[in-house]
């Protein structure tokens, strides 16, 4: 007998155990001993080490994340069918339809092995959605890399994009949105966040509970191998360090074909109501699925680990428990329904094995070679992990940074027409604002035939019900620079932007997910950023009556002492009664009016202009006005529903100037623009004040639309008229400059291919 | 127990962009003097029993119909001891 058992643990209390190598701290190890009343067996130690890792237990973030639940308003709760705590939240979108959505990170693996890291990130989030009983219907990927021209970005970006495309396309999921952002602080710590949305009927919701004594625990999907062993605790809970050994062996490898079969297999199983509970195996694999399901259900589970189908017969029980082999699910099935369950798995050639059953002992007991190797209270593994109160402290340089505002005295501003025109072209061609076709043309946006709007539109819009046209819109946004200047405001600004983007397409914002990407929680300055950001986001969700339905925290995004820009990615989902009414962003027919809704102030702190032209990050980010965002959203949604709007586009990075350029290029049409005379032209064009949108309305609707804005006390002004078609059409800013669409298109579309290679997309 | 190896390569006249990409990478890594790189596939087939003539013939047949697309690929079957 060469493996450690519970019995052996009882008899050898002083055995030295590698808890530090597995990522546990001394006090955590002692706590495990207290819980069990003895030392843990090595299998139990493996289990606790992965489940108590930062990535799985949220130990540094839990105390802050509570606010999402605590600050949820009654109005917000109305549309929530399943809240925080499950694999993904479920939102009622009307007519008996629901959607479930979530965004997650797969940052560290994507730095180590870009293709597989990104691919398995997609795989993981899709399984989370599937596990709720939904058919996955779309994906989106907010991505952040180091400087666009850095050699390592040339290694990471193409691999990540190929991996997302390779996996998502093979699953048959349209990629409808996302972002690509470049910044120095992400070099060495790229952010690869993956979002998935699925649709289901209200009565199809599935939960991850193991209930019903005697019900069978079935492991199905791919066989278990040595993938990602310790990936969770070793990779995601520690920063990269040049001295430590290569992280390569811990990365998982994905098989999208198996996952596609798994999706179809599960949906047939769900349709016949064959499962009592279901959980996908992601971080921490079998350890996670068994402990979480037992903990959430009747309380106990008995598993025979020998029954787990293995790809590698040399795996030890500890390795089997920690393995992160992809494309696996765990279901609880009533004995009477097992045959039918297995029959469906067989039809799809999916391996399925009964590995255990639900008990009422309140213990998770796992056997290997007829010996007990795990006997723990599941709640202590899955839900009662350590909770840290990490110290946090506002950084000493925060005040100085906020005081360093980008005033005209501090940073030279363009004043002449030539300078304004040059600034425009410079921003248009800067990597963050340039066209992202190089990336997005590697994704299938058509599959399933329900994509109504996809990138570069403000939000991805997919039809959920072919008969009625009911659909959803989703946008993800974050601004690391704003958040660095003021984390509380930065998180609110991310929500505001995603909320605004959803409304711009004509959808009513309903729910929120988030992926909070930060540096090391052991750094009080980072922890302060996190605490402030969560507080800001929770407060903003409260003010806008939208619930956070779930999300993800990714800590330790730093190399050595330098953390990434604090990057809380916020995803907003909205509902649209009839997708045929959606509002696209392209400038419409010639002669239609271009209006600017909202107020423009001198707000360049953290702006693209300050960054691109001056490499400056200082001052305060634009003011947050959630009341204004709410009013603006109401206007945009009503305008869409009542047929007043030909087009709408939110104003964000790059200000009104970029919004107009993007609308012009999308529609292949120009515009004659008249800037308001009570605002400095530079500010009018490039300020990033919030709560604004550019809309195009037919002349016949202009009065009705303007009245609607006035009734809500929202400023609105005509800023131009659509004029000119084709590449020789111009964006002409009266009294200042004009630039042809051809020149704008070249400036916008040449940047990424010049850096990453030609593209036919 | 016998092991049969089938090597499959694109026919010389077929464009091999993957091979070209590898060649480019070699040169960027400072490995000069490479006139060409072609990328192919290798199948390692472990058989339960010994390899008799009938099995050998069957492997050849499968190599030409499944493992290789003879419209664009050439193949070679070898027995390894």
């Amino acid at each position: 007998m060469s493996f450690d058992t519970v019995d052996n643990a009882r008899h050898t209390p002083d055995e030295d155990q590698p808890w530090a190598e597995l990522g546990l701290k001394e006090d955590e190890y002692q706590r495990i001993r207290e819980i069990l009343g003895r030392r843990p067996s090595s299998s139990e130690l493996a289990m606790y080490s992965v489940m108590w890792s930062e990535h799985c237990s949220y130990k540094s973030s839990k105390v802050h994340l509570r606010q999402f639940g605590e600050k949820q308003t009654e109005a917000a709760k109305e549309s929530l069918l399943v809240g925080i705590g499950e694999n993904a939240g479920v939102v009622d979108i009307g007519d008996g339809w629901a959607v479930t959505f979530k965004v997650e990170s797969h940052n560290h693996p994507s730095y180590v092995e870009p293709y597989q890291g990104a691919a398995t990130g997609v795989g993981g989030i899709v399984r989370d959605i599937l596990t709720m009983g939904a058919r996955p219907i779309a994906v989106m990927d907010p991505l952040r890399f180091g400087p666009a021209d850095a050699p390592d970005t040339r290694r990471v970006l193409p691999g990540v994009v190929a991996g997302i495309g390779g996996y998502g396309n093979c699953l048959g999921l349209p990629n409808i949105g996302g972002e690509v952002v470049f910044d120095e602080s992400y070099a060495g710590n790229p952010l690869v966040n993956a979002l998935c949305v699925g649709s289901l009927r209200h009565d199809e919701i599935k939960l991850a509970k193991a209930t019903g004594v005697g019900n069978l625990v079935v492991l199905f999907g791919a066989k278990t191998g040595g993938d990602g062993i310790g990936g969770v605790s070793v990779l995601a809970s520690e920063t990269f360090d040049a001295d430590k050994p290569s992280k390569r062996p811990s990365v998982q490898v994905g098989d999208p074909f198996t996952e596609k079969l798994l999706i179809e297999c599960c949906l047939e199983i769900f349709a016949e109501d064959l499962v009592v509970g279901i959980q996908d195996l992601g971080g921490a694999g079998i350890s996670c699925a068994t402990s979480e399901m037992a903990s959430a259900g009747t309380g106990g589970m008995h598993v025979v680990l020998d029954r787990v189908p293995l790809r590698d017969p040399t795996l030890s029980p500890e390795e089997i428990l920690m393995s992160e082999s992809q494309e696996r699910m765990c279901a609880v099935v009533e004995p009477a329904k097992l045959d039918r369950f297995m029959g469906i798995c067989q039809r799809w050639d999916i391996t399925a094995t009964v590995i255990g059953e639900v008990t009422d002992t309140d213990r998770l007991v796992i056997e290997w070679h007829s010996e007990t190797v795990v006997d723990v209270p599941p709640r202590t593994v899955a839900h009662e992990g350590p909770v840290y109160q990490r110290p946090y402290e506002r950084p000493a340089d925060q005040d100085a940074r906020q005081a360093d505002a980008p005033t005209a005295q501090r940073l030279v501003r363009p004043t002449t027409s030539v300078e304004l025109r040059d600034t425009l072209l410079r921003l248009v061609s800067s990597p963050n604002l340039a066209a992202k076709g190089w990336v997005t043309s590697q994704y299938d946006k058509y599959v399933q035939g329900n994509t109504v709007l996809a990138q570069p539109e403000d939000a991805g819009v997919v039809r959920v019900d072919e008969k009625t046209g009911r659909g959803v819109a989703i946008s993800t946004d974050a601004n690391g620079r704003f958040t660095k200047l003021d984390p509380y405001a930065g998180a609110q600004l991310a929500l505001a932007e995603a909320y605004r983007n959803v409304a711009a397409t004509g959808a009513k914002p309903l729910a929120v997910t988030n992926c909070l990407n930060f540096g090391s929680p052991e750094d009080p300055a980072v922890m302060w950023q996190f605490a402030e950001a969560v507080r800001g986001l929770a407060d903003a969700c409260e003010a806008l009556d939208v619930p956070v339905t779930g999300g993800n925290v990714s800590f330790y995004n730093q190399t050595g002492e330098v953390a990434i820009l604090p990057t809380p990615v916020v995803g907003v989902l909205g509902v649209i009664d009839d997708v045929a009414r959606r509002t696209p962003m392209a400038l419409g027919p010639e002669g239609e009016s271009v209006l600017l809704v909202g107020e423009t102030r001198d707000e360049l702190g953290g702006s693209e202009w300050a960054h691109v032209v001056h490499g400056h990050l200082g001052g305060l980010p634009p003011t947050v006005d959630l009341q204004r965002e709410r009013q603006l959203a109401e206007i945009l949604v009503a305008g869409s529903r009542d047929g007043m709007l030909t087009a709408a586009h939110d104003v964000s990075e790059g200000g009104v100037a970029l919004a107009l350029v993007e609308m012009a290029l999308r529609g292949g049409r120009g515009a004659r623009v008249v800037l308001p005379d009570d605002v400095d032209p530079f500010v009018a064009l490039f300020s990033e004040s919030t709560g604004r949108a550019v809309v195009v309305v037919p002349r016949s609707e202009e009065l009705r639309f303007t009245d609607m804005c006035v009734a809500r006390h929202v400023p609105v002004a005509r800023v131009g008229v659509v004029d000119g078609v084709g590449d020789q059409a111009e964006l002409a800013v009266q009294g200042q400059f004009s630039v042809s669409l051809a020149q704008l298109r070249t400036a916008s579309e040449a940047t990424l291919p010049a850096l990453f290679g030609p593209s036919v997309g | 127990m016998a092991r049969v190896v089938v090597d499959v390569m694109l026919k010389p006249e077929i464009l091999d962009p993957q091979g070209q990409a590898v060649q480019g990478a070699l040169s960027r890594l400072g490995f000069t003097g490479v006139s060409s790189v072609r990328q192919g596939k290798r199948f390692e087939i472990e058989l339960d029993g010994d390899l008799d003539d009938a099995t050998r013939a069957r492997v050849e047949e499968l190599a030409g119909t499944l493992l290789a697309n003879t419209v664009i690929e050439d193949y070679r079957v070898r027995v390894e001891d």
Partner: protein
Amino acid sequence: MARIGVVTFPGSLDDRDAARAITVAGGEPVPLWHKDRSLAGVDAVVLPGGFSYGDYLRCGAIARFAPVMEMIIDGAQGGLPVLGICNGFQILCETHLLPGALTRNDSLHFVCRDQRLRIDSTSTPWTSDYALGQEIVVPLKNGEGGYVADERTLDELEAEGRVVARYLEVNPNGSRRDIAGISNAAGNVVGLMPHPEHAVEPLTGPSTDGLAFFTSILTRLARA
């Protein structure tokens, strides 16, 4: 109502979209499972796009041996109209119902774009509703779409009017002679790389230019 079979292999993706296109065109889509040994009396068959068997080994190489394919090959040799879209085209080449093969895009990238095409043959049952030389815009999305064949075969295809569609403006994958689709000698079997089933609804496609692939076959079957 004409009944058009749509085959689902493990990993097929655009089967439901093909079925929708058939419905929009006015036909009755009939789902066929890869393990079926009967074609359920359908009047024509569509092999849809996707990643059958994950594109493992070679695209379409494993699907081509599915039980349902035996019936389809048989039927096709007897005149049954068959349309292979994208992965379906790859399968048809692997079965040798169509000559040549599809290889990795010369850019090495998967590409999804709204592709301009020219219809170069209207004598197949899948393209008879188009005008000869008609230019259409249809989504293209693949990583292994480069059509290759030896010079003799390519000349033969041209000479016999068997090039059904050609890429215009941009050749997205390195296909020889800009070939986007071809037919067999009898004209009943057509392989096409772009996806007409994604261009049948103005709301979700770049145009409705793809619909005629599906109305053509219904027109032809109605006449029969």
